[in-house]
């Protein structure tokens, strides 16, 4: 035992005495940092502002930025980010290559040798099989400048649209949802709406564990105004439901029926807003055919509370109660995340949430907004906005739109026709084509696909087959097993760049400390790589991240993503600015599309709201029928398996796993089973339980808890020793191509 009871008591007494004197007793920041450098937290999509304490050239402490939206608060992950993660023993500080193929060991080499090794191979592949045989697989954790640069290198430099990334796995459905309902991506609301909302409709989001600081803000709102209603719709009774007035568990995969059922009650009880619908909405069905409001009303009238109860298992009176709370509240905010997005009908589910806001007019006022939460710190700003996905070009432009391609070609000063007219491979197709040998070389940046792709057994052979160049900070990333070249990346505050979080807020992480060892900022790696592969140097004339930001800011000026006013200087002074922000004096926008608030709506516009992203200027109400999930539970595989986060670990735990306080809270994966099911299956707490799906089977220790409803089991995905994604199928949403991680069928039994 490291500390005896006596020592513990003695230590405590000393600590009490010292703290009573106001003397910092212990701690990394004893004596205090010499300076505090502003940044954004490295973890989730909340995008909290942080201050990194630096002493003697080392990061020694971290605290919340009082001027950012989090007002100085941090969750445990953010508060423990420094120094354990930065100075982790397994930080990669030298470039490495595998000289003798995938089975040989990674060997440390010089930067020149590593870059040469990678570029020679990429050049050979392009010469032999054309630019469609190389790909970039990026990340919602990469800096905006990195994603913008990689996108330009690939689409305009190498002439390959094979640019995709892990945001495809987490928020592609939210993007398509906003695009189809409002004409342009990104939410119209901000976190400020949380402080004004009187009803929270939280569906498919465990805000408490995935976005703790937002949950804190919701809880504070509830605390300050106890009449505020919180509805949590989730088959799991998560910690988020602890502050809820109503927790509504439903049969997994039946959310479309539930949302249409709420719409039915809203019309039936005359809680709709005809004036809002008449002025601001149109109705569509199918692939975009026009429909009428009467048609829509007839369509939802089939979803009676009784029918919804049959499909979803939610009592009819609860469907009515929820719908009334939603419609009657002075201001309702919807919050959702992966529970809605990671579904084979994820885009439709997004549309149906937007529908509820459009038929009630719960939009465009403080507190009334559909706000999709994002999982990663820079999926919104870095990947969605810069168009770093296979079908996109920067600022909401589409690859398959000739006008959009020409606009980008003119701006980038490349001949018209340079950008390929066909979209590249989305993530699942990309790895399928890698396995088939069509994509032969991939540059992976800041993500760990060997742990996070669905149906891993199908896709890891792709990584074995293709040539993999990878940037990585930590030696325990699963994907390193397949890397041919590893570029050691400068981590987080060792370089500078912009993150854009859920609420359209762009904020700068400034460089606080030099890159560790021989690691380098990825901007520099990408530039050297591009020049090595033969990209015209005139296309990438940048010295640093600030140069790239300047170009991106200028480009944004042309359209509805206008953030020309967010200069590097402003980013250094201010703790994040929300776009649209067309000029340097503009304070940023809270209510997008709203006259008087959004600078892109003309001051003399006849209507208060103008959905200028859509060609009609109106938002769309969609007729979207209920559809079951791809693989519902059946007689052979009678349970539903779902996955998600736990509060103390983040993604594949390559960062949180370095912090003992976090890692020991959840050292390994487990399976949550409802007590009723456990009793039937004779499973006790801690028993090894086998989950067997049509893909694979694995054993997990059981946690008997009523968090999961009967018939549902849950496994977190952070544990690299239990790659739960081997169990999941790879069916994707037809529109967004986002996989359905949230639902698959499984057998559950005790290990013999």
């Amino acid at each position, binding site marked *: 035992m490291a*500390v005896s*009871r006596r020592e513990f008591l003695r230590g405590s007494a000393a600590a009490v005495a010292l703290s009573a004197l106001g003397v910092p*007793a212990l*701690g990394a920041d004893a004596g205090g940092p010499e300076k505090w450098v502003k940044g954004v937290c490295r973890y989730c999509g909340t995008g909290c502002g942080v201050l990194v304490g630096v002493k003697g050239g080392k990061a020694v402490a*971290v605290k919340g930025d009082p001027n950012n939206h989090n007002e*100085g608060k941090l969750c445990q992950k953010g508060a423990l980010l420094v120094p354990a993660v930065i100075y982790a023993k397994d930080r990669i500080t030298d470039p490495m290559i595998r000289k003798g193929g995938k089975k040989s060991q990674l060997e440390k080499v010089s930067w020149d040798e590593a870059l040469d090794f990678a570029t020679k191979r990429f050049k050979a592949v392009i010469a032999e099989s054309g630019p469609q045989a190389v790909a970039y697989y990026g990340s919602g954790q990469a800096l905006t400048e990195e994603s913008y640069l990689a996108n330009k290198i690939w689409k305009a430099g190498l002439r390959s649209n094979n640019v995709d990334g892990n945001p495809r796995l987490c928020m592609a459905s939210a993007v398509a949802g906003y695009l189809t309902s409002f004409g342009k991506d990104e939410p119209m609301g901000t976190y400020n709406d949380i402080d004004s909302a009187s009803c929270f409709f939280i569906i498919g989001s465990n805000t408490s564990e995935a976005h703790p600081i937002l949950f804190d803000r919701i809880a504070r709102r509830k605390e300050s105004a106890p009449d505020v209603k919180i509805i949590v719709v989730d088959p799991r009774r998560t910690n988020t439901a602890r502050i809820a007035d109503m927790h509504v568990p439903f049969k997994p995969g039946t959310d479309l029926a539930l949302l249409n059922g709420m719409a039915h009650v809203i019309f039936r009880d005359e809680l709709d807003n005809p004036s809002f619908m008449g002025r601001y909405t149109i109705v569509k069905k199918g692939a975009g055919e026009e429909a009428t409001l009467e048609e829509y009303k007839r369509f939802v009238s089939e979803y009676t509370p009784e029918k919804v109860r049959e499909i979803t298992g939610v009592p009819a009176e609860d469907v009515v109660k929820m719908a009334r709370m939603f419609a009657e509240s002075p201001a309702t905010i919807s919050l959702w995340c992966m529970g809605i997005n990671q579904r084979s009908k994820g885009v439709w589910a997004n549309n149906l949430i937007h529908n509820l806001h459009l038929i009630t007019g719960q939009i465009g006022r403080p507190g009334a907004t559909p706000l999709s939460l994002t999982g990663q710190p820079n999926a919104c700003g870095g990947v969605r906005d810069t168009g770093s996905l296979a079908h996109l070009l920067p600022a909401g432009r589409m690859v398959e739109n000739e006008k959009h391609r020409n606009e980008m070609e003119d701006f980038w000063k490349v001949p018209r026709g340079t950008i390929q007219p066909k979209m590249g491979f989305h993530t699942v197709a990309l790895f399928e084509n890698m396995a088939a040998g069509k994509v032969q070389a991939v540059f992976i940046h800041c993500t760990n696909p060997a742990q996070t792709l669905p149906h891993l057994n199908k896709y890891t052979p792709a990584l074995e087959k293709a040539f993999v160049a990878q940037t990585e900070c930590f030696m325990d990333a699963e994907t390193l097993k397949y890397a041919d070249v590893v570029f050691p990346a400068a981590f987080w505050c060792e370089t500078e760049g912009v993150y854009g979080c859920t609420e359209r807020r762009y904020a700068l992480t400034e460089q606080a400390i030099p890159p560790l060892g021989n690691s380098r900022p990825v901007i520099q790696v990408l530039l050297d790589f591009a020049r090595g592969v033969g990209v015209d140097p005139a296309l990438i004339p940048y010295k640093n991240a600030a140069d790239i930001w300047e170009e991106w800011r200028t480009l944004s000026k042309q359209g509805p993503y206008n953030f020309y006013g967010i200069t590097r200087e402003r980013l250094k002074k201010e703790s994040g600015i929300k776009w649209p922000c067309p000029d340097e004096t503009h304070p940023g926008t809270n209510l997008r599309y709203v006259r008087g608030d959004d600078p892109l709506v003309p001051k003399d516009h006849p209507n208060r709201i103008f959905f200028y992203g859509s060609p009609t200027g109106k938002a769309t109400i969609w007729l979207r029928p209920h559809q079951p999930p791809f693989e519902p539970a059946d007689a052979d595989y009678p349970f539903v398996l779902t996955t998600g986060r736990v509060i103390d670990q983040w993604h594949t735990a390559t960062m949180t796993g370095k912090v003992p306080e976090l890692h020991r*809270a959840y*050292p*390994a994966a487990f399976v949550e089973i409802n007590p009723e099911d456990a009793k039937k299956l004779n499973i006790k707490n801690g028993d090894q339980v086998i989950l067997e799906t049509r893909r694979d089977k694995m054993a997990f220790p059981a946690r008997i808890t009523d968090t999961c409803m009967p018939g549902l089991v849950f496994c977190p995905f952070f544990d690299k020793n239990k790659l739960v994604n081997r169990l999941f199928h790879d069916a994707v949403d037809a529109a967004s191509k986002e996989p359905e991680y949230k639902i698959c069928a499984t057998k559950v039994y005790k290990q013999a």
Partner: protein
Amino acid sequence: MAAKKKLLLFLALALALVGGFFLYISLAFPGSRCEAAKHPEAPEKYSDCLECHLKVTPMAAQDWRESKHGVLLVKCAVCHGLPDGKGTVPFAAKPGVREICARCHEPAMKQMVEKYGARLECESCHPHHQNPMHRKAFEAKKPSKTSF
């Protein structure tokens, strides 16, 4: 003499009662007595402080669970560190205000100093654990008796 004998008898009886009480406690709750004596050595057993502390310090555990920190899942180790001292937060029953509390609450602390002047500690007005979600932050109260 009789008085002395009586006193001895009384002392023996008292000793037997006290001894019997401790014997009963250790026999009746063998697990919790054992866990109370020391923190588990195996790191994998650290995972949930609450599991043991519900038995050994039920009041503190329940206070936490009902407090804002409990609702927000700010767990024990985030402020108190790990018993073997191998974490990044120093292990302490009373975490230092400046180096632990300030990481999240510095703006509020500054406000308080501006209003009331510098104080030596925060806890007498803001008991860390007894700060339930739906009550005013400054309201110190006795822990409730409800179970969970």
